[in-house]
């Protein structure tokens, strides 16, 4: 068939022909040029789609003609090339649209678009090349045609950029050429073959092959920007934004790394490369690049430069995936080819938009840009979060597979690299998002426009500038969310890897699906509601959405029998949702508290600012919370977990005052640390459980995996010493949000543990013991510190830590004595349920009681309202607390010390509650409070009643009802309370009560230490002009990072990276220890 032998060539030519035509178009014939542009891009996409369909139907596309004897020009569509070709075609299309908008009115457009076409043509050629020589030809061609694009602006900077670019790429090209010629003379035509071509060759000196490999990688490494060959990339930022986008996301950088993939897999063959010991070196270089470039990125204040360094770092993931030399890592590397492209192109589009519309080039000018350009910054945020590797964005999928792949081949250090890099990614991306969304705009934008001014058109910029980033960001998100779909890049990557390693890895687990649509709806509803916020009419009535979104879930959770699973193989890696006895209780708890908090918010937020923002984060966090409870697969769980954690950031920072900012910073730092640790743990888990996507708490879990899981979820649960964010974040949020944070969100950690730790299967005595110790220390220490708080919400937050300490100890018991776990689990669930509802009620009290007490005739009611939950927490008879505690006690009975400790903890709890009442009383009498409204009353009443009654509804609690009324059951529990009252009275008499430990205890210490370091650095005088220093040395970079962090801090008087650094060091040490 003529199609089959010409289609690849036609695809390459289509871009080139349109380039040639455009080159000849008169400069002023805008319409003609634009239509040619769009037509060319569409044609290309169409042809690629035709080819894809053809390949699906099993046809082989290959264009081949002889160049020299034994040397053919081959263009061929195999799985790997299709991946890259599709990416290029699609991204070209969007970049074209973007570039048309971006370059409106500028000079030399015909030249620009002409070479643009050539560039894509060359990229297509690189992608479709069927042997190394063809690859080389198009690779060099690419250098040539991108050169006019890089220096399109023609100013001094772009001249310099062009020169640097050429010097690097030309030398790289020469080295590559030498390698290819040599290899060709040894091994013949070098047609790409899925399993490599060299292994079968007889009589080849292995040392020569090694040298050639180094030559090839050095040549390709220039474009792939491996250190130390990356120098051109940041300089090339002088090019116009669409060019940067194309260079970084598709064309040049990718061509280099694509070449590495080809060389390693299709020429040398992965097995053979490993035998030759080549992959390790490559992996080390890639890893070094990842870390080094990330560090450099932190020091950049120029947005595009920061993105450039980020590219250097991210692209090396692909090389890393290639070098890890395992099937799973291969998938990760290859899929990152696409993911990084989508995300990075989005970011460059956005950077271009910012520069074009507001003149923003520096990160320091970015404050408040989110409100002025919401679509752009949303797209940017999605891309950035994806880059950091937060699920479910595309970047996570890549990192996930890389991590699991690394474990597969026992290359644990790569996990450390991934973790460090993710942290660094967060360090350089999150401040951008923070500044754009949460900082007020400066007096005017860099281009002189006032922040007050409305955008001129309907959109924030020309639609051609807005559409492409929006779509690519969406694609990046979808690529992650629907990773399991057969249309996703991941599917193709698996296909490619299967080609390389054999087919067993492609199989996606096909579960029989018993549909429980209600489960899906419970997750989807909040999401839909948040999407509905886009509609103005709904925005004006947004608050009412909050309870409305939660109500159906509440009904579902109550009515649905705990049975059946829901599988949606397209979503994530094949997502599963199911409800069983345990998570039914959690779901009821969550639904109840979310519903109540939603109701409460309607009243509470009525007169406050930024309602829509609040609703958005509220709904997203709600979605995450429900999702994580229901999700049975790893990816689904971690996705929803992250969604919840990050959305809560918006809730914590909501009031946007200093305290809230400080709290939010601490919060997000710990979220990121937690995520990173979790990532490491979960990848290990995924590998050891034998399937990459299924959650199974395996019996063969490695020790370190358990440790990481414990630590990772421990962050959420307030396990000391990871608890420091909690007392800061919980009080900072608006009252309903605090209730949620303390009431339900902390339980996510528990859910994680229950689901992923080998509880009940294996005894991991050391960790179990550790948890018991840490748990109880938490219980008592938190009680002590809480006693010294002056803010009611802080007291409650410490109480949460204290209570969670008990839960932690319970899990510790489960870990240590697997045989006890069947008894401990329901007790823990009950305890969590009880604590959730009651703590939420107590947080509402902080706002509700003073309002109630404001009316004299309702004071008694107020006292009752507050006393009942207080007693419940303490665990007085008949209260939910009593049931929960007796359940716990029962399950601990066989352990000597624990019941006693439990009893003692009641004293602490009682003290805390006394302190709470004390503080609350003072504030209630001090401050004027808002009037009560029906919403708040209903909400509070609901929770109040639930806190008293609901636990009796649960069948699990029936065992622990107070059945015999005796002294020991009725009066003994009062003893600790009495003891506590006495103690509290004594404390009040002493000077102790004037002391105050600031919320966040240890973190404050750390901040102090780093403040001293700051002073010391300042004295050294380096940081003064640090931002002007342009020399590239690691030492100076460090100073710059330091100075930068300091500058951020001095601007915001916010938190300190000390905590981050600590986490960092922690991860490194742990990983180092494990190796």
């Amino acid at each position, binding site marked *: 068939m003529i199609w089959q032998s010409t289609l690849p060539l036609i695809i390459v030519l289509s871009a080139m022909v349109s380039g040639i035509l455009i080159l000849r178009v008169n400069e002023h014939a805008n319409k003609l040029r634009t239509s040619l542009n769009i037509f060319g891009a569409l044609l290309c996409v169409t042809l690629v789609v035709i080819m894809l369909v053809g390949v699906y139907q099993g046809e082989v596309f290959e264009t081949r003609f002889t160049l020299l004897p034994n040397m053919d020009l081959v263009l061929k569509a195999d799985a790997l090339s299709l991946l890259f070709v599709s990416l290029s075609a699609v991204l070209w299309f969007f970049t074209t649209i973007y570039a048309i908008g971006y370059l409106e009115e500028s000079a030399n457009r015909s030249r620009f678009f002409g070479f643009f076409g050539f560039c894509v043509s060359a990229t297509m050629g690189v992608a479709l090349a069927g042997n190394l020589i063809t690859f080389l*030809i198009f690779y060099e061609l690419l250098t040539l045609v991108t050169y006019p694009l890089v220096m399109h602006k023609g100013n001094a900077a772009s001249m310099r950029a062009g020169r640097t670019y050429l010097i690097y790429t030309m030398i790289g090209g020469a080295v590559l050429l030498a390698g290819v010629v040599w290899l060709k003379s040894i091994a013949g035509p070098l047609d790409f073959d899925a399993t490599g071509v060299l292994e079968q060759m007889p*009589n080849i000196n292995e040392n*020569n092959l090694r040298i050639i490999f180094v030559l090839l990688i050095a040549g390709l490494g220039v474009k792939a920007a491996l250190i130390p060959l990356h120098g051109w990339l940041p300089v090339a930022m002088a090019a116009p934004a669409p060019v940067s986008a194309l260079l970084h996301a598709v064309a040049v950088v990718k061509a280099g790394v694509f070449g590495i993939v080809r060389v390693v897999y299709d020429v040398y063959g992965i097995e053979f490369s490993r035998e030759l010991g080549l992959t390790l070196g490559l992996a080390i270089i890639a890893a070094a690049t990842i870390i080094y470039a990330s560090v450099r990125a932190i020091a950049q204040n120029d947005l595009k430069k920061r993105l450039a360094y980020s590219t250097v770092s991210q692209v090396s993931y692909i090389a890393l995936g290639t070098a890890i030399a395992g099937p799973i890592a291969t998938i990760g590397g290859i899929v990152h080819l696409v993911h990084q492209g989508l995300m990075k192109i989005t970011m460059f589009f956005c950077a271009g938009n910012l520069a074009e519309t507001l003149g923003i080039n520096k990160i320091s000018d970015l404050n408040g840009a989110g409100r002025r350009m919401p679509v752009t910054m949303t797209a940017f945020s999605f891309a950035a979060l994806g880059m950091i590797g937060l699920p479910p964005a595309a970047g996570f999928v890549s990192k996930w597979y890389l991590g699991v792949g690394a474990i597969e081949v026992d290359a644990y250090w790569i996990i450390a690299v991934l973790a460090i890099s993710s942290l660094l990614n967060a360090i350089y991306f999150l401040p951008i998002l923070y500044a754009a969304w949460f900082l007020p705009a400066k007096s005017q934008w860099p281009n002189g426009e006032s922040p007050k001014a409305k955008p001129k058109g309907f959109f924030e910029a020309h639609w051609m500038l807005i559409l492409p980033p929006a779509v690519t960001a969406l694609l990046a998100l979808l690529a992650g969310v629907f990773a399991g779909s057969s249309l996703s890049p991941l599917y193709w990557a698996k296909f490619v890897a299967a080609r390389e390693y054999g087919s067993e890895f492609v199989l996606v687990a096909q579960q029989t699906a018993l549909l429980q649509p209600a489960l899906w709806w419970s997750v989807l509803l909040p999401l839909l509601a948040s999407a509905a916020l886009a509609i103005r009419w709904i925005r004006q009535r947004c608050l009412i959405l909050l309870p409305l979104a939660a109500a159906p879930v509440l009904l579902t959770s109550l009515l649905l029998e705990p049975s059946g699973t829901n599988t949606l193989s397209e979503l994530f890696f094949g997502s599963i949702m199911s409800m069983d006895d345990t998570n039914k209780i959690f779901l009821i708890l969550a639904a109840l508290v979310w519903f109540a908090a939603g109701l409460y918010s309607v009243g509470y937020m009525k007169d406050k600012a930024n309602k829509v923002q609040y609703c958005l984060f509220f709904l997203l966090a709600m979605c995450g919370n429900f999702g994580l409870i229901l999700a049975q697969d790893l990816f689904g769980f971690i996705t929803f977990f992250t969604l919840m954690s990050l959305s809560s950031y918006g809730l914590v920072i909501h009031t946007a005052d200093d305290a809230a900012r400080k709290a939010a910073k601490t919060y997000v730092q710990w979220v990121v640390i937690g995520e990173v640790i979790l990532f490491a743990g979960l990848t290990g888990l995924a590998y050891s459980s034998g399937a990459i996507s299924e959650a199974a708490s395996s019996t063969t879990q490695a020790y370190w995996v358990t440790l990481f899981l414990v630590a990772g979820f421990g962050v959420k649960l307030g396990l000391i010493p990871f608890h420091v964010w909690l007392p800061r974040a919980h009080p900072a949020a608006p009252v309903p949000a605090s209730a949620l944070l303390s009431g339900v969100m902390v339980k996510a950690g528990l859910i994680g543990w229950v689901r992923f730790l080998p509880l009940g299967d294996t005894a991991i005595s050391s960790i179990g013991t550790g948890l018991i110790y840490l748990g109880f220390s938490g219980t008592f220490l938190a009680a002590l510190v809480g006693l010294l708080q002056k803010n009611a919400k802080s007291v409650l937050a410490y109480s949460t830590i204290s209570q969670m300490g008990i839960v932690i100890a319970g899990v510790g018991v489960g870990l240590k004595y697997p045989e006890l776990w069947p008894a401990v689990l329901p007790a823990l669930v009950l305890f969590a349920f009880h604590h959730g509802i009651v703590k939420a009620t107590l947080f509402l009290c902080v706002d509700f009681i003073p309002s109630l007490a404001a009316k004299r005739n309702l004071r008694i009611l107020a006292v009752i309202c507050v006393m009942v939950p207080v007693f419940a927490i303490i665990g007085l008879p008949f209260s939910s607390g009593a049931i929960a505690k007796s359940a716990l006690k029962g399950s601990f009975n066989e352990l000597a010390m624990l019941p006693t400790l439990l009893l003692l903890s009641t004293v602490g709890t009682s003290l805390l509650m006394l302190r709470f009442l004390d503080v609350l009383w003072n504030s209630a009498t001090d401050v004027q409070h808002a009037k009560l409204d029906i919403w708040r009353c209903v909400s509070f009443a609901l929770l109040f009643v639930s806190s008293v009654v609901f636990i009796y509804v649960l069948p699990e609690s029936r065992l622990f009802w107070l059945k015999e009324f005796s002294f020991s059951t009725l009066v003994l529990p009062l003893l600790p309370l009495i003891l506590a009252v006495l103690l509290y009275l004594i404390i009040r008499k002493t000077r102790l009560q004037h002391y105050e430990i600031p919320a966040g205890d240890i973190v404050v210490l750390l901040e102090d230490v780093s403040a001293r370091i700051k002073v010391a650095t300042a004295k050294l005088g380096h940081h003064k002009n640090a931002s002007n220093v342009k020399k590239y040395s690691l030492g100076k970079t460090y100073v710059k990072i330091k100075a930068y962090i300091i500058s951020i801090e001095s601007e915001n008087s916010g938190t300190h990276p000390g905590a981050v650094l600590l986490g960092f060091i922690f991860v490194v040490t742990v990983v180092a220890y494990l190796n």
Partner: protein
Amino acid sequence: MDDITALLPAFILLPLAVSVCCLLVNNIRVCVAISIISAAALLILSASTLLAINTYEAGILRYAFAGWGQPLGIELEVSGFTALMTALTCLLVFVLSVYSSVYFSSSDKALRFWPLWWLLIAGLNALFLSSDIFNIYVAFELIGLAAVALIAIENSRPALIAALRYLLVSLLGSLCYLLAVALLYREYGTLDLAQLANITSDSASSTAALMLITVGLCLKTALFPLHFWLPAAHGGASAPVSAVLSALVVKGSFYLIARFWLDTLAPAASDAGLIILGVFGAGAILWGSVHALFASRLKVMVAYSTVAQIGYLFLLFPLMVGNSQTNAFEGAAMGAITYLIVAHATAKSAMFLAAGNIMRIAGHDNIKQLKGLVRHCPLSIFTFGIAGASLIGLPPSAGFIAKWLLLSNSITTGQWWWVIVILSGGLLAAAYVFKFLNLAFTKDDDTFNKANIVSKISPIMPLCALALALLTVVLGFNAQWLLDVSGTLVYETTGQGFTGQNLAGVAQ
């Protein structure tokens, strides 16, 4: 097929006749018309010769002038290689004639140009086709004097001095060659190349003759360090003349050096000599490229680039060490050089034409004063870029294929040090090509803007240049065909005869 053989003299006689006609009519338009028609005719003739040549059994056609045959008479000899050279000549002549018809249209120089032009072409064809060493001497003189005369029509003082210097060098070279002819005739009593090839020995006289021929022809070819005359001469001539000088004239003498070393006087040639030639070639690559990089005038830069490219040609010799082919013009190295000749000819002439266009527009070719040029003659810059890419050896171009073949040969013969030379030559080429392009693209502080434009040029001029540049690209895709017709193609057996071990041995 005999009709083709009978038409062989037309390669020389038609240009001569056209030259006389042009001289007699003394009218520019008529000259142009005759020239273009004849150039087209020559092109067709050469193409059909090229296509026909391989249908002959030996791949060789011979034509005896005056019917005497060798050794008494003079014969023309066409092999695949020379047919390719002739075809290349005719092709370039056609394009350059079209170009010149516009380039010289407004000038009295045209009347002088056309007759000389055709005499030069007659000389080139005579050189490539001749099988008689004395006839080759006469052809050399025809080429040399015509070239000098063509440079001298520029009539500026530097051009005249360059022409004079070139003339002296050319005469010196010719005399050395003639002395060698005398020695050879004295020793062997025949002047026919093919006959000589059968009877030569490694006598002292033959060695001396080979030495004299090498020195004399290296002077003409401008092999480093005997290149001193070239930059001024090639840089000072008018654009089409520079093009033909760089593209073809130097190749003529190179062809003969190769012919004598590898074929006619092969018994007298030593391996050491072959390698020394290669070393000078390497010197030329580096020296020429570095000087091109620092040249302040565009055409001088291009001329120095020719010096460097000639250096590549001389890498042929070391690569032929130990060549077992019976026919000297076979073998992978020869294929590489053939390709390089073609690639360089098209690319370099395209480059000179582009430089000529720029000079026409700007009135000068001082590189520093040409910042921002790209807006005023984009097509010429584009052409320059493509041709430059071919010179650098970037794919897809003929230059890339040539360089590929060279590299591949260097590696298979275990002479890896040439790889370094070739690659650094390519990098240096990139440096000077892009140095100019960089300036041309500069937008800020441009030294060249609308006010500096001296004259407008006819669109035919840049199109001719572009056609040649595109030709280098097209040739990059037809490598096999070209090697087939040139008869240099030898199918190598992959991976055999060469393994890593013996390379390692060489490296030690």
